[in-house]
């Protein structure tokens, strides 16, 4: 029976709601040095120091990840969140870095805002999908997953536009990347056990769930036991063990940050700068949302 219900996507909502804000002035490449335990528990985007922007993103992603709406058209969508963020940026008198106007580093552009919203939502959903694939029954029936195109792209990776036409540069981009990540191709298909290390190796973010990269149309889909056995991915009665929870505790995040002292110093400086933009009354609220890695000690932020 199909019926209307008030049933949120619990695992996606848990992922989204537990994350803390991470204002920063770093590039994507610099942020890739951030320990994975911190990265997956934070709402951030390269060079975004505006905590208010991150807070709106977080609030709306929480709602979108739940999948619940009170009435038709009431669930936020990419366009409505983008509109809200543009209005917020105007109210903050946001200015992109000189010479970067209209580029992907300009927060006012559709391209950048879509990237932030889509990546954050896909992370929450990807985590939720990954968690629900870990039950005993799910692993018995679907012990493997296939990496394949699930959404079309105007210019897929490995292609470019030349004179208005799509030109192939490396149509096997994903197969090459899969093999470099330690994956095996079975009858032309990229398939691996659900908790194989290839998934983390494949991911730009070092995470075992979707998305594996920015704006990709590729993702994971379940492969049934019989098919996986037929293709030789697993043995007939082979069992795949479930993965641990996947979300780092605050203590694990702090320990992970200690392994990256340079980026930790930089983040502390970013926090100070971000906090100085707030009134004293708002500092408590900001500290409350700042990712549990630091606490206030006088005028200092020290590791929690």
């Amino acid at each position, binding site marked *: *029976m*199909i*019926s*209307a*219900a*008030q*049933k*949120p*996507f*619990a695992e*996606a909502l848990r992922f989204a709601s537990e994350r803390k804000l991470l204002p920063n002035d770093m590039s994507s490449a610099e942020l890739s040095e951030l320990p994975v335990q911190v990265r997956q528990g934070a709402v951030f985007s390269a060079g975004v120091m505006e905590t208010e922007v991150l807070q709106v993103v977080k609030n709306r992603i929480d709602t*979108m*990840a739940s*999948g*619940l*709406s*009170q*009435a*038709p*058209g*009431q*669930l936020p*969508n*990419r*366009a*409505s969140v*983008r*509109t809200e963020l*543009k*209005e917020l940026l*105007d109210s903050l008198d946001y200015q992109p870095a000189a010479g970067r106007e209209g580029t992907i580093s300009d927060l006012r552009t559709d391209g950048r805002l879509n990237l932030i919203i*889509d990546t954050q*939502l*896909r992370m929450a*959903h990807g985590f*939720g*999908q990954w968690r*629900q*694939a870990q*039950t*005993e*029954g*799910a692993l*018995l*029936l*679907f012990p493997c997953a296939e990496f394949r195109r*699930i*959404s*079309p792209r*105007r210019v897929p990776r490995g292609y470019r536009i030349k004179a208005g036409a799509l030109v192939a540069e490396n149509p096997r981009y994903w197969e090459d990347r899969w093999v470099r990540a330690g994956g095996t191709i079975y009858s032309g298909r990229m398939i691996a056990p659900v908790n194989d290390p290839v998934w983390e190796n494949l991911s730009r973010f070092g995470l075992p769930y*979707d998305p594996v990269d920015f704006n990709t*149309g590729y*993702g994971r*889909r*379940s492969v*049934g*036991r*019989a098919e996986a056995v037929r293709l030789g991915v697993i043995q*007939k*009665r082979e069992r795949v063990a479930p993965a641990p929870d996947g979300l780092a505790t605050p203590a694990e995040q702090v320990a992970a940050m200690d392994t990256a002292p340079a980026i930790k110093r930089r983040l502390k400086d970013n926090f100070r700068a971000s906090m100085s933009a707030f009134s004293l009354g708002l500092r408590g609220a900001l500290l409350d949302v700042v990712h549990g890695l630091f606490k206030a000690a006088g005028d200092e932020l020290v590791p929690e």
Partner: protein
Amino acid sequence: MSASINIRLTENGATPAIRKLGELLGGRVLHQAIGAAMLSAVQEHFDRREHEPNKLGAPKTGFWAKISAGTSVTSSETEAVVTIPAPILQKLYGGTIRPVNAKALAFPVSPLSYGKTAREMRADGQTKFIPLNRGNVVGIITTIEQKGVVGEVLFLVVRQVTQAADPSAVPSVETLMKAAMDAVEESADALLN
């Protein structure tokens, strides 16, 4: 609201292989497996919809991919439930949408405005509102006219929108049930024999 599809395995729906698997695994694990199979079948359906071109021929917004990614599954000793995010309800049942915090609704009618809001295009200074006030139609929003050339219509502004139901938005319960049972039975063979 979200849309829930509940499937409870009954004696009638179970083949001997599935019953044997159920005896071996217990109701909770069996319904986890059935839930996983339902999820897989629903996502295959949404994947097919995602690859269909949209009516305006505009760049796709990934509606079906988001619906697919947001679909969840829960199970108990006695049933498996697949839950699909709220926007599927409007697709599936259709119905009238009325403005909540505004006086009218603007819906896109051009590839230029597809996936955008009228508010953000107005803020960018790209649009002009032309009042019409004819029945349900409040007016139109167009691009700014250039050198005497009338702008392109981007949005129709209306008091309400009634959308038709799309029963194919989700697979039928029968289709899902069969897909789930086939998947369980096929894997039961691989596990038991």
